[in-house]
């Protein structure tokens, strides 16, 4: 391991903690990443907005990436209205319901349903949402 990382108390504390599902908005990539499990995964690109993460060993759903979040909200204010709850938090399960309708991509409806179930109740704070 790189010596500085070994001496990084915050990083070492995180590595020592038991895993629980996590989600985070990334300002650099304008994307939300969610992990339900901490296992090696493959990304499966569903469309221009969503990639689902499946476990490398058996293909079960373990996470996802939602891209272009702020841009999508700027382009589709109705979607933003549904998906954002109080304190500027994004409900991931609401996103997958609304996006399935909005994108009208029938091919991925069952996968969006699966993602909705996996992200039930998950909220991700967004820094700000452009009007």
């Amino acid at each position, binding site marked *: 391991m*790189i010596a500085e990382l070994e001496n990084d108390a915050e*990083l070492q504390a*995180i*590595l020592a903690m038991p895993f629980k599902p996590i989600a*985070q908005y990334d300002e650099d990539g304008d994307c939300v990443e969610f992990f339900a499990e901490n296992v*090696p995964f*493959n990304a*499966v690109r569903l469309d221009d907005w969503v990639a689902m993460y499946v476990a490398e060993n058996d293909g079960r759903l373990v996470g996802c990436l939602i891209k272009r979040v702020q841009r999508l909200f700027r382009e589709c204010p109705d979607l933003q209205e549904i998906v954002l709850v109080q304190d500027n938090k994004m409900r991931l399960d609401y996103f997958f319901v609304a996006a399935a309708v909005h994108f009208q991509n029938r091919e991925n409806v069952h996968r969006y349903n699966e993602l909705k179930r996996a992200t039930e109740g998950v909220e991700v704070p967004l820094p700000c949402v452009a009007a």
Partner: protein
Amino acid sequence: MATLPIPHNGGLRFQAFHPADKPFPVVVTRKKLLFWAKLGAWRLEEVKVTVSEVLEHPHAIFQGLRKEEDENKGPDGAGWWCFVGVPSTRFIKHGSGARKPNAREIFPVFVTDEDVVYNARWEEVENENNVVWMREEHPERFRRRIFPDPGMQGQSQ
């Protein structure tokens, strides 16, 4: 083997291959590093070793993710890059080591026009092997492939 990244503002700084210039620095931010570390030591190894390997020795580089194209900068649309490679190993969870990637696995690393890594993950290509996939254009995902140059097939690293 790739050069390991060096600590940078609490995150990591890598040297990325440039097809027409010197290697250039690319970073994983502190916020991203801590987020990915929550997955465990295997993911940290993947970020340090696998991301380094792909950034330093990509098999292909694609430019301009389709939906980001109107945010690209520069006269020729120089925007977000996707480095793709087949690293030498794939890390397995909880210290159980690593294995060789199979013939369908690739590892894309997505980099913004600010040279920040925002996503890095394994994918399995469909209906073909990874070498064939990396030599194709994939217009449904990217604006163009910038490395290897379409006229220089067979000279990728």
